[in-house]
């Protein structure tokens, strides 16, 4: 690891020269799990002082690439060389010793320890490797401040929001003063400002000679940040080119291996008629404050705003998860009390929720696709509690066909599917219930473009067939491209409702920060 003096010297040198120096090279790396090939003889050069984007659909091999580089898995074949010398990355500890640090998408934080303990988890800060709490605290504080985080080093990680935890994860990787910093979807939960700040830091690190591997699904981040792009597809490294050499469409084509037409389906004329869902002054625990909005059949209603302003809680309240909710929910003209998810999904209401955390809330990963698909509708497939095997099989076949879930067998565990296909299973398991109102919480987070387009088309089709859809997402593009109307949350309530031409990025951003918006707005929804 270079000393700070080294770094300063490097920073002073011409970056063009430096960036010709290769830091890590992979050659012939292959890795397969069971029968599935995740990486197939991949060659990749990562130069110093470079921000190198890795692009690809889910299942393209990006996460396995990261796991190989960080020592989480060992490749079946191939070699890793660091600065020209062969290097065996046997475990995360050896990777760290070689100066490789990673911001993991699924976060590598330990929930019951403090922020400072997490940032310096595998390293003592004092003499002889002992832990010097005071020094650790100070160093953590400095790092967090640099990232613009208001989290205190003594906070327990469990109490943090997702975006706060993501910043801590970034701080943790930076604390290792890596020579290769890998960021895997590191900005998925961050706000615009935080992302900007992070980018400044990454650019500074590049000027100091650090290699950065940046994995993202957001093309505009690649545009603003990266200097080199590598595209992966089906476990193979397809091509590497300087950023800007290809148009975004061309890059997407490379990722998919085919061209995509329109990613968002066309919006129909505004839905008229009686609202299916009419929420009035919904409040809960100080986190939701008098939320009111209506959704009509055939409509996709977007819920946006900065992370943690009551959006998720509103969806949970509408699904009967929260207790002591006040205000009125009218469903199909009748005032209803939604006491539990069981009641919400029942025939009387027909509400479905695609929850935020696919892995722990949406699915049972070790169970089969068939069992996952049928769990929420199972009570309708039984007589006297006994499951009708034939009806179950037909339903599963039908759902897998309808959503094009790619798997060898309905008896395969859901954990064997790619992220996109897993999310399709979550959607399918609720479609099985023929819901009239579908609540979705970030359904396309961490999902590849191809599957995203499929999900958008599906949602629009469901709306056209008469369902009402409420979609919470942190992705502005989605709010603008897919939704008919959008309510922007601020401080637990819907501050602005945007529709038509007023539904644009500038207005969403301004409303998210409680600033005045341009154009016609409709606050409140009535």
């Amino acid at each position, binding site marked *: 690891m270079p000393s700070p003096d080294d770094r300063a010297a490097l920073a002073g040198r011409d970056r063009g020269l430096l960036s010709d120096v290769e830091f890590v090279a992979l050659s012939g790396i292959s890795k397969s799990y069971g029968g599935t090939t995740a990486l197939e003889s991949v060659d990749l050069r990562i130069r110093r002082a470079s921000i190198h984007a890795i692009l690809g659909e889910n299942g393209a091999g990006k996460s396995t690439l990261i796991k190989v580089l960080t020592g989480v898995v060992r490749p079946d074949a191939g070699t890793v060389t660091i600065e020209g010398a062969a290097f065996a990355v046997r475990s995360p500890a050896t990777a760290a010793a070689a100066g490789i640090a990673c911001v993991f998408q699924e976060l590598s934080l330990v929930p019951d320890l403090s922020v400072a303990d997490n940032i310096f988890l595998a390293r003592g800060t004092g003499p002889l490797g002992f832990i010097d709490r005071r020094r650790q605290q100070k160093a953590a504080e400095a790092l967090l401040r640099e990232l613009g985080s208001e989290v205190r080093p003594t906070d327990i990680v469990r109490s943090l929001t997702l975006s706060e935890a993501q910043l801590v994860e970034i701080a943790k990787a930076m604390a290792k003063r890596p020579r290769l910093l890998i960021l895997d979807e590191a900005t998925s939960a961050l706000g615009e400002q935080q992302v900007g700040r992070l980018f400044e830091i990454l650019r500074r690190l590049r000027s100091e000679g650090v290699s950065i591997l940046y994995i993202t699904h957001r093309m505009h981040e690649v545009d603003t940040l990266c200097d080199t792009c590598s595209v992966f597809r089906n476990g193979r490294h397809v091509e590497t080119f300087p950023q800007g050499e290809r148009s975004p469409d061309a890059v997407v084509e490379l990722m998919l291996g085919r061209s995509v037409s329109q990613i968002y389906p066309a919006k129909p004329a505004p839905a008229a008629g009686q609202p299916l869902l009419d929420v009035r002054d919904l409040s809960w625990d100080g986190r939701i404050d008098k939320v009111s909005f209506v959704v009509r059949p055939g409509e996709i209603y977007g819920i946006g705003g900065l992370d943690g302003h009551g959006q998720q809680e509103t969806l949970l309240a509408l699904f009967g998860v929260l207790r002591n909710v006040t205000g009125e929910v009218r469903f199909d003209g009748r005032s209803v009390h939604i006491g*539990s*998810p069981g009641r919400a999904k029942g025939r009387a209401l027909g509400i479905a929720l695609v929850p935020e955390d696919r892995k722990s809330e949406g699915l*049972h990963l070790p169970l089969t696709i068939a069992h996952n698909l049928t769990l929420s509708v*199972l009570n309708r497939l*039984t007589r006297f509690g006994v*499951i009708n095997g034939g009806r179950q099989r037909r339903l599963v076949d039908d759902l897998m066909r309808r959503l094009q879930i790619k798997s060898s067998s309905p008896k395969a565990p859901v954990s064997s599917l790619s992220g996109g296909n897993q999310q399709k299973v979550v959607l399918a398991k609720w479609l099985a219930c023929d819901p009239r109102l579908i609540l979705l919480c970030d359904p396309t987070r961490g999902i590849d473009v191809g599957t995203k387009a499929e999900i958008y088309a599906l949602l629009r089709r469901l709306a056209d067939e008469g369902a009402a859809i409420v979609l919470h997402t942190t992705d502005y593009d989605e709010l603008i491209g897919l939704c008919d109307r959008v309510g922007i949350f601020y401080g637990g309530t819907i501050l602005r409702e945007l529709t038509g031409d007023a539904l644009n990025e500038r207005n969403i951003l301004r409303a998210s920060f409680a600033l005045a918006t341009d154009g016609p707005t409709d606050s409140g929804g009535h």
Partner: protein
Amino acid sequence: MTAILRSPTTIVGVMIVAILAIGASASPNFLNASYLLQQLQISSFLGVVALGALGVIVLGQIDLSVPWTMTSSAIAATSVVGVGAAAQDVWSTELAMPIGLAVGAFIGLVNGIGVALLRVPAMIWTLGINAVVLGLCIFITGGFAPPGEASPLMRSLAVGRTLGLPNALYVWIGISLVAAFLLTRTYIGRAIVAIGNGERAAYLSGVATQGVVILVFVFAGLCSALGGLLLAGYANQAYQTMGDPYLLPVIAAIVIGGTSIQGGSGSVTGMLLGVVFVTLLTSVLSVLQMPDPHRQIIYGAVILITLLLYGRFTRPVN
């Protein structure tokens, strides 16, 4: 093919054959049909209790109140017979079993409420319930087994025979079939497995998870009670320590049957073999006239080795 060879069921099957071979070489009577039937009869008591515990383990929980659920149900049933005999009441012998089972179901209900509603870890809640039931029994009985005996029905179920086979075996097989059917073919079984794999996701799928958990604990209480009643029928009395030797063998039988102690999956067939294995192991050690300490050591070592074999053969290296 290798998958079948390496399944827990196969391994435990091989171990059972090995034990039979050892037993046969030690004592010529070991492979005698009547001796083996008697082993199956004793297995039934353990097997009935283990069926209830299996459901709890599939949920990802554990029931440590097994010993005193068994004992208190048996004490209640035999006391009813005793009190009835003293009062010359003809109904009491009929009431003995329902009352004993009701005691078990009630304990199961309290277990379920603590785990599902109060959300106290099952390990500690059922441990406390076990202590309370023990305390109650001692307080009420004054520390002595109350006068009484098993009802004719209990005796018949425990030691009687029909068509040459022990009645207890029918009871065990019958409940096993019901349990296997419930676990694999019904909504409740699917819900149990789902909860064991992740209660949040099950709850968000609209499963009434708390109700299911309570139901499973009630079933476990009923099974423990039935085991206690059978045991009391076998011994024709209830006694303070009758349930104690059952707690650990129940867990051993379940995990040897290939069910993960972490929950989320469970095999009734595997468990049946596990129960037979544990019973035969105990009996072969007594046939070999092994002193008790050595018996314990071998018992522990064999369980450990079996599980090591599972770890070696059945789980993929992650």
